[in-house]
């Protein structure tokens, strides 16, 4: 046990009581491990003994599921934490060390998946280029399946997956704010004001999604559906969190935001139509209705006023903006393929 006091250079004793670990009383339960790596993380956090992380390394992951869940768990310490887990662990050097090692490994895989921009030149009109990339994306569409023929049970399974991100919608993007100059910062603040309900808690997007989950009879508690989350769902979450947590990846955070918004209006309209087709005309349809209009604004702000301005100031950021954009398409295509396959629909 380490001492709870330390001596300064004059020999005076100081109490460390102010940083005595306090276990969080709220927050979700820790997830069920999916392999040795995520089990090591869960055990270390639950016991409050980060020394148990010593020797854990991304290469020991039993599967992509195991690695993604281990990373998701470590990153969640910066959102809502976990019930019973000491809050000081968020910035414990061993916790951060393993988190960053997992993020580096995932970033390398993600860059290989997404590819680099062709050519060395930065587009003249970055905003239009991003919106054109979004229009050209021809990945499988979950929203089209919901619009036309998904059943109530199938939609329920989709919403449980979406809850992993939608219950913290826009939160990882908030980390981008302090890294921007005035122009893109004010555009992002306007976008986030909308995401956060313009001062009305009930219009806050993740609160609207909570109401929608309740309408659909799904546990809307933050983190409640994590044990049924696909690896593809976990990776969508860990990617956007990684982009938010690392200032180095600010270009990717902005590109991800722009592509996410630019592939939202029309799919949201299809989702709302599908929910109404199934007789669910309440809170969840309202959530998607809101995204039709809001994201028609947000895609323009994100692509032109945020990404465009960031690349104009720092042209080297274009490669990472491109990474963020491609990551949205690639990870959603993987998710949609997995989900539609489980519905018996060829993607």
């Amino acid at each position, binding site marked *: 046990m380490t001492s709870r006091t330390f001596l300064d250079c004059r020999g005076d004793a100081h109490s460390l009581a102010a940083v005595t670990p306090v276990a969080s009383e709220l927050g979700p339960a820790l997830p069920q491990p999916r392999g040795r790596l995520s089990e090591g993380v869960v055990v270390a956090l639950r016991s409050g003994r980060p020394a148990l992380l010593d020797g854990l390394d991304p290469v020991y992951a039993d599967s992509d599921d195991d690695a993604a869940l281990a990373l998701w768990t470590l990153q969640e310490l910066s959102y809502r934490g976990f019930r019973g887990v000491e809050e000081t662990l968020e910035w414990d050097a061993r916790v951060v060390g393993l988190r960053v090692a997992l993020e580096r490994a995932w970033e390398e895989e993600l860059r290989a998946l997404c590819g680099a921009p062709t050519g060395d030149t930065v587009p003249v*009109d970055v905003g*239009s280029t991003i*919106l054109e990339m979004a*229009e050209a994306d021809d990945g499988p569409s979950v929203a089209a399946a919901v619009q036309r023929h998904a059943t109530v049970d199938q939609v329920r399974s989709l919403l449980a997956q979406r809850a992993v991100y939608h219950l913290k919608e826009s939160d990882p993007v908030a980390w981008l704010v302090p890294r921007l100059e005035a122009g893109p910062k004010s*555009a992002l603040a*306007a*976008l986030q*004001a*909308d995401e956060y309900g*313009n001062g009305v808690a009930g219009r806050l997007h993740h609160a609207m999604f909570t109401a929608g989950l309740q309408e659909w009879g799904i546990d809307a508690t933050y983190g409640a559906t994590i044990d049924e989350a696909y690896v593809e769902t976990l990776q969508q979450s860990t990617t956007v969190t990684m982009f938010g947590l690392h200032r180095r990846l600010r270009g990717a955070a902005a590109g991800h935001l722009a592509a996410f918004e630019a592939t939202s*209006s*029309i799919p949201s*309209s299809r989702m709302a139509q599908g929910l109404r087709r199934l007789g669910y005309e309440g809170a969840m349809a309202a959530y998607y209705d809101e995204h*039709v*209009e*809001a*994201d*028609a*604004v947000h*895609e*323009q*702000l994100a692509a*032109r006023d945020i990404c465009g301005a960031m690349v104009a100031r720092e042209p080297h950021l274009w490669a990472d903006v491109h990474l963020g954009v491609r990551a949205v398409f690639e990870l959603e295509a993987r998710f949609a393929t997995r989900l539609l396959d489980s519905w018996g629909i060829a993607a």
Partner: protein
Amino acid sequence: MSVEPVVRGTGECVACPGGPLLVRGDALVEDREGREHPTTRPVSAVCRCGRTRRDPWCDGTHKLLPERHRPA
């Protein structure tokens, strides 16, 4: 084809190439029937392609139109 939005307000208005008119701040925007709608967002996107189903607001429909039918 494109329509010219009618906007009454003091905030800046910027036309996005091939897309909506972005209106900053509070304004009144006319729909196709001439009825006025107040903005409810810090920035609003107003339809310029004439095909929105959420008149007068942009719903992304311009993206489904061939290039020649999009606003300039």
